């Protein structure tokens, strides 16, 4: 079996349409619509849930691939990745149900490849830095926002379901932090490369100013993604790391 597979080798049912996220962004721009619609709208919520669902599928595949791509990694590392595959498969089911709850189905919207692209690192330390700290950290931000949207809509089905998922994501980030440090012990250069890989992932998901620190948002209409400080602290991010992410989000917003 081939290691380090590109996104087009991922198996998908034929009713799925997978595209580059840049192309999806261009198509939204072409329609002259506001790219950041209010997330309280039913259709926007459905599209968001579909995006998270496909993200969970790719996260499940990514954790499985990490297990397969690095057979010489410590046994405990492999066990953590196997646990993560199981968690992500449950998340996939949860979001499948939430999507149906909102009247949507798998395949109703485009799937983008960006999460998978961010998982392309050939060192396990960089891989977990990018996936477990970068992408799962992003999941903490997205779920924190989704819980607030559900609370505002008075929807305790989504609120509780996402809260359960968020609890898992926090453990995934912790795993990432643990293994990024453990695998790079005594090798500061390797640690630096892993952190740089994570920074590049974080930069992609600053969404050109779409993700910000809560204190940087003057009028919170719910359209911007906020950096979930509390969840990130629970997940083992240091204050310094959160400040670095905030600085990077401010830089993105300036462009």
């Amino acid at each position: 079996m081939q290691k380090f597979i590109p996104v087009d080798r991922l198996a998908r049912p034929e009713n799925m349409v997978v595209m580059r996220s840049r192309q999806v962004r261009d198509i939204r721009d072409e329609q002259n619509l506001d790219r950041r619609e209010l997330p309280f709208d039913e259709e926007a919520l459905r599209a968001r849930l579909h995006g998270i669902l496909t993200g969970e599928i790719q996260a499940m595949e990514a954790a499985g691939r990490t297990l397969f791509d690095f057979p010489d990694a410590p046994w405990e590392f492999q066990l953590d990745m196997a646990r993560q595959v199981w968690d992500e498969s449950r998340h996939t089911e949860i979001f499948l149900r939430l999507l149906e709850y909102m009247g949507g189905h798998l395949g109703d919207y485009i799937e983008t490849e960006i999460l998978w692209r961010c998982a392309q690192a050939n060192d396990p330390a960089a891989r977990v830095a990018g996936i477990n700290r970068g992408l799962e950290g992003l999941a903490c931000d997205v779920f924190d926002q989704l819980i607030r949207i559900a609370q505002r809509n008075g929807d305790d089905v989504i609120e509780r379901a996402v809260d359960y998922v968020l609890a898992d994501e926090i453990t995934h980030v912790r795993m990432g932090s643990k293994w990024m440090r453990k695998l790079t012990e005594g090798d500061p250069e390797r640690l630096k490369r892993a952190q740089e890989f994570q920074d590049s992932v974080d930069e992609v998901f600053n969404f050109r100013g779409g993700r910000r620190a809560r204190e940087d948002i003057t009028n919170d209409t719910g359209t911007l993604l906020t950096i979930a400080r509390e969840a990130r602290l629970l997940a083992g991010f240091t204050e310094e790391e959160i400040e670095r992410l905030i600085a990077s989000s401010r830089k993105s917003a300036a462009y």
Partner: protein
Amino acid sequence: MPDLGFRKNVMGPQPIAERAPTPPEMLGAAKQFLEFLAKGKVEDVGALAIENARDEVNRLAEAARQTGTYNQKRIVALARINRHYWIKGELTGAGTKPFIVQFRLGEQDGRWKVWETINLTNARSAWTR
């Protein structure tokens, strides 16, 4: 192997929202596009495209015509990006290799038009080389 149960019996929350309706005019345009492709009507296919996509659509129609003749068509996938739809269609015919196309439909001046196309006949995805 742990017993995972019979998952189809597991109840999830009941839907609270209606399925968003698919515009029938859009579906009609999609079927017509596939029909013209299947019959090799290059000019008719081109007429369904917006100005900027006409050359690309003509090339696709020519490719379909050269691949073979088809008597069956089906819509395989239908995914949306806001108000535009990506449709994956398959044309089949006896003794002919299936022709798979992905095309985007959007409204222009009240009519559903083809904005872009991707020939997926020998590819796994839209960006497979």
